[in-house]
């Protein structure tokens, strides 16, 4: 069995998403880490989050709560 066939077995969900993902994983595997990072990292302004140069939190719970209380919900930092 070839590599692709094996990998398709892993992606047991036969949705079109799975096939698309597999193709994306294989394309990324052919790239160097430098190329992967170049394609991955983007920069957009995130309201509130980007408005301070330093923040620290005693606990992750404090950080999560701060995100929920202060960041716009559309940023997606709130817990489900």
């Amino acid at each position, binding site marked *: 069995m070839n*590599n692709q066939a*094996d*990998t398709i077995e*892993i*992606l047991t969900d036969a949705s079109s*998403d*799975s096939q698309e*993902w*597999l193709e*994306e*994983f294989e*394309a*990324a*595997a052919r*790239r160097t*880490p*430098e190329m*992967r*990072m*170049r*394609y*991955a*990292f*983007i*920069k*957009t302004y*995130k309201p509130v989050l*980007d408005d*301070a*140069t*330093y*923040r*620290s*939190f*005693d*606990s*992750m719970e*404090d*950080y*999560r709560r701060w*995100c929920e209380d202060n960041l716009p919900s559309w*940023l*997606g*930092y*709130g*817990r*489900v």
Partner: protein
Amino acid sequence: MGAFEYRQAQEINDAFNRNGVRYLFIGKSGAVLLGFPDTTQDAHVFVERSPANGSAIAAALRDLGFSLTQEQTAEIERGKDFVQLKNGPFDLDLVFAPDGIERFEDAWQRHVDVEGFPVCHPDDIIASKAAANRARDRESLPRLKAFRDYWIKQKTMR
């Protein structure tokens, strides 16, 4: 400030290694180094919480050009759970206690080396995102889990 670049990841690695920092790339930045194709904005590093490592992190950050006050330095040396730095040449999040991972040493034992970059194992990246339980993570987890399966399969075939 522009997007985080590979060259900056190398600078982190060089400065952290020079100062003896114990750390791992975690989160989506770690996943990207492993080969996960997705977009992200933030570079996260999981750093061991210990007095020696805290001092080493502070020294490495100064080497990198981060401007740290005495109070900020003390917080990093003490190892607060989460520190968000936007006062240097690039943005960087220090995570001393990621959700879903019990101890740094456990993650270190499982870590993956990607061209000299120490990166959390995909299982640990998934565990931390699953435990964080944020909307943004929930969306990316199915694809990240499929990538983990693909990555493991590729490794066993080599």
